[in-house]
């Protein structure tokens, strides 16, 4: 794996469109770890997450030449990874998983000695899938509201509303309200 490429995503994509395999390798290096973490959120399995990540990049690879990026690459990759992960889960456990059910699992088991994180995990677990998803996209993946809206193909207002409701739950719940204490 090469050292980090200083070129922007758009520059790397332009180079890959011109046939530069190293540019694609740089894109892979830049987003690989994020893609695995995201895939893990949906699959709950390291092996499945790795396979989903691989499939997502092979899907991206097939877009070249001629790939045009209108937003950030995470906005493009997010629904790809999400759909691949959910599809994989459906194949593995078709009877027990609803089509659009999101696992959105934490990657680390909370340390029960650190009760704050354990409480946070518990409250997140009871949030509706749609609210938990946008919360994680916004505050873990660092995606802008507009990017979330584009990735999920929903209005920005809906994203804001979901984030708002998720935060209100966290603020109101006895187990997590301490985060918001002045």
């Amino acid at each position, binding site marked *: *794996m090469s050292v980090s490429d200083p070129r922007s995503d758009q520059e790397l994509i332009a180079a*890959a469109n011109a*046939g*530069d*395999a190293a540019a*694609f*390798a740089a894109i*892979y290096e830049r987003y*690989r*770890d994020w893609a*695995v*973490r995201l895939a*893990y*959120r949906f699959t709950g399995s*390291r092996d499945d*997450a*790795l396979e989903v*990540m*691989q499939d997502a*990049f*092979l899907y991206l*690879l*097939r877009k*070249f*030449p001629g790939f045009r990026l209108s937003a950030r690459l995470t906005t493009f990759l997010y629904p790809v990874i999400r759909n691949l992960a959910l599809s994989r889960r459906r194949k593995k456990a078709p009877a027990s998983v609803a089509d659009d059910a999101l696992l959105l699992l*934490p*990657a*680390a088991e*909370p340390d029960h000695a650190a009760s*704050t*994180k354990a409480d*946070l*995990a518990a409250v*997140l677990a009871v949030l509706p899938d*749609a609210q938990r998803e946008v*919360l*994680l996209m*916004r*505050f*873990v993946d660092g995606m802008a*509201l507009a990017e979330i809206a584009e990735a999920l193909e929903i*209005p920005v*207002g*809906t994203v*804001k*509303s*979901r*984030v*708002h409701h998720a*935060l209100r739950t*966290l603020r109101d719940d006895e187990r*997590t309200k301490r*985060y*918001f204490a002045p």
Partner: protein
Amino acid sequence: MIDPEPDSPEHAEPTLPQALTDDLATLYRADLSVPGELDEAVLTTARAHFARQRRRRLILRWAPLAAAAAAVILLAIPALQSVRTQARRAAPPDLAVRPEDIDRNGRVDILDAFTLARQLEAGAAAEPGWDVNYDGDVDGADVDAIAMLAVRINGG
């Protein structure tokens, strides 16, 4: 979900206390290391993909030239054949002037032998050029000589 009104508090840019952001990151940003073999598999596939694209580009770049060259050749063959045919028709002077070409049609063939034979039988006046074997007489030996030449020329 119904969109909130634009001026509702839900439209304010959402913020999170730093401690909550940090704990979310701890819960959801675990280090899931990617095996080197998986990296290599993806990148090998990518290299093969881009190599195929390069080959395809080369083919697309040279295909019009190759097609043009083929078209030129295809067009040139009938034209050359036509030129050769015209040349054959218009200029067989080396054969036309041969004394063996009794009927003056530009070719020496068995018909010249027949023509000379008929001329001799009819008692026609012999032309000096008909003495093709150069023995001083125009006779059956000249007919035979023309026939032999015609067979050699036309029959190989």
